[in-house]
């Protein structure tokens, strides 16, 4: 199918482009911008007046809850959410049940996703069997099955010897390792940032040291093993400073932050709002401000949704007993736009953090940009529209997010995957 997208404002962060140009798609690929290629005759023309035409978003952490947690969400429901949110590529954390530690499981997930024919999935394999931090997973086979990196999700490895071996083994193949900085014992019993709010509410705290100590360990071990480290979901200013310092010392290290930590702090817990129970915990306003600044100047490489659908049963309990996590796929774009507006960032720069920069971390070369030849994964949105986040409007099976009731900028009008319109605003 040949598609011409006309009258739109083309934003392609990878090529530093923000211009009113037409875009031409054929055979699932981008074939030209500006002038139509010779002999191009569009079978469909999409009028993108007042819309931004951008690469489809790439999310570094989207839990689809399959296999194992289908009562919370299914591939279908969450893929719908991704399409509604303009997210066309998803990195899947391995904390499913069973964990993504077997090539067969990963193949099954990729097969199921492909059959649904919506967003592209990029599974992140379990670094250790069952995420137990004891035995190494079959990394080479898992990569053959489709894994793009390895991680422990939110389950830290207790034994540093195992962690070192896992990093060494991954480094043998130059596989990327994505690690959540959480020191196991310091983070174990806490449910909120160890600060004034947790003190007032009597919630067990998780100190910033849980993040920094883990980072010290990861950075030291990555340095000695030569592993390629990506740090997921930074939560603190001190954590960011450590990543920066490692970079100054010549280390190839990347990091990301979630939409929740970019916009919220522990103050948002208010009177025990369990939607704010997240891993890592929401930290102080000062931490949040440092993360926002870090994402703006590129010290934090990418922004992700950390999409974790939790059902009401998991949230309608006292804060400390509630399941951590929040739905996010449909909020990734609006919260990117909100951050850009509030920080006075040009859109082309802000969108880089959820397209081209995220693509680089996953190792995606064919998407995340609008260069001719790229996969025609696109998100067409109205940046001026505002939408109130409500349970009814969320497609995700997880209706719980701290942003419920908030009015956020940006409405997705079209989502295209490989040149096919997968979502169209009615």
């Amino acid at each position: 199918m040949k598609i011409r997208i006309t009258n739109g404002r083309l934003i392609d962060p990878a090529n530093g482009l923000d211009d009113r140009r037409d875009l031409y798609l054929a055979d699932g690929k981008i074939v030209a911008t500006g002038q139509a290629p010779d002999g191009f005759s569009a079978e469909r023309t999409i009028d993108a007046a007042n819309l931004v035409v951008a690469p489809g978003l790439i999310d570094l952490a989207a839990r689809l809850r399959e296999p194992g947690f289908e009562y919370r969400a299914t591939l279908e429901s969450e893929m719908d959410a991704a399409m509604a949110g303009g997210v066309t590529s998803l990195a899947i954390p391995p904390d499913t049940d069973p964990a993504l530690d077997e090539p067969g499981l990963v193949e099954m997930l990729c097969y199921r996703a492909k059959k649904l024919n919506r967003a592209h999935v990029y599974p992140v394999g379990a670094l250790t069997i069952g995420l137990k931090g004891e035995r190494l997973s079959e990394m080479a086979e898992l990569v053959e099955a489709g894994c793009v990196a390895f991680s422990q999700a939110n389950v830290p490895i207790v034994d540093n010897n195992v962690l070192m071996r896992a990093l060494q083994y991954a480094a043998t193949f130059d596989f990327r390792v994505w690690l959540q900085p959480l020191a196991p014992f310091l983070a174990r019993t806490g449910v909120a940032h160890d600060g004034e709010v947790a003190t007032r509410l009597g919630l067990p705290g998780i100190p910033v040291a849980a993040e920094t100590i883990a980072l010290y360990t990861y950075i030291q071990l990555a340095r000695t093993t030569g592993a390629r480290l990506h740090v997921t979901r930074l939560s603190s200013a001190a954590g960011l400073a450590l990543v920066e310092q490692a970079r100054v010392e010549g280390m190839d290290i990347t990091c990301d932050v979630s939409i929740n930590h970019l916009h919220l702090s522990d103050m948002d817990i208010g009177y025990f709002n369990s939607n704010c129970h997240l891993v890592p915990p929401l930290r102080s306003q000062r931490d949040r401000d440092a993360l926002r600044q870090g994402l703006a100047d590129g010290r934090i490489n990418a922004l992700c949704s950390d999409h974790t659908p939790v059902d009401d049963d998991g949230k309608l309990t006292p804060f400390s007993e509630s399941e951590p996590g929040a739905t996010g796929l449909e909020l990734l774009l609006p919260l990117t736009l909100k951050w850009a507006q509030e920080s006075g960032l040009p859109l082309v720069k802000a969108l880089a953090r959820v397209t081209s920069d995220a693509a680089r971390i996953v190792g995606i070369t064919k998407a995340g940009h609008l260069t001719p030849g790229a996969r025609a994964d696109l998100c067409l949105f109205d940046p001026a529209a505002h939408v109130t986040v409500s349970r009814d409007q969320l497609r995700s099976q997880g209706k719980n997010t701290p942003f419920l009731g908030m009015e956020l900028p940006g409405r997705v009008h079209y989502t295209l995957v490989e040149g096919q319109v997968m979502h169209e605003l009615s």
Partner: protein
Amino acid sequence: MHNPQLNKHGELQHLLTIDGLPRDIITAILDTAAPFTEVAEREVKKLPLLRGKSIFNLFFENSTRTRTTFEIAAKRLSADVVNLNVSTSSTAKGESLLDTVDNLCAMQADMFVVRHAASGAPFLIAQHLLATGRDHIHVVNAGDGRHAHPTQGLLDMYTIRHYKRDFTNLTVAIVGDVLHSRVARSQISALTTLGVPEVRVIGPKTLLPTEVERMGVRVFHDIREGLKGVDVVMMLRLQNERMNGALLPTPQEYYKVWGLTAEKLALAKPDAIVMHPGPMNRGVEIDSSVADGTQAVILPQVTFGIAVRMAVMSMLAGQQGSNKQ
């Protein structure tokens, strides 16, 4: 932020925490409690204020003392009281907290007195009642996790007012395990709201929460320093399990360093009073000579506790008091 325990007229709808409670409401509760202390001295210890009302004592955590005082308070107001030890019934069968609440609502409850091991549980119940249009049912927090124990905080204020009259010239020290103490948090909120110029907390760093000074207290680790010149000493209970988790080495060392002895108490003002929320660990946080001494007001605290709980319940659900429905 909307304070979920006040209704839209700013009146008390639930009693969930003292943090954020306006000073005049605290004072109104203490004033309402005063005449109730006399009821206990009558031959017929009953008032008809809550006649026909059903009060459910919903205890998800074991407690004898607090539950009993709530029960006595409710019965003196002529309410019907049902005691539920949920820790040993429904939740053991896997029923969720809100399912339990819904079932009891169906039994026409007028008030829940809730104790729960998790901070914030009574808030969850209050929010659930509001969301389901049943906010005519009142919730009283009888202790949630480490968060709050507002009626204890109020009875402590009643006790202090009884002996000291005025809050605005006092120095008050809270001694012990503030970290795990819902009582301490409610005391701090109440004392600072009532205008006590200096509230001190005294204890080892392992038992004082992070940034506790942001709650408006001065932090002392040396009990001798901290007790100097105080008018009120509020002791906290030290749970035995604190020896696990590397918070303290032994009860013996704790007693030696932070236990309240006559010698340490002598550093306070000569007319200082000594309080304790009970149950006491003699020889751990407090020496028997102090617990049974002339400065101790620990048993009057218990007596006042019934009057204060009567005041709270009558103000919430009664036909009299400052909060008519």
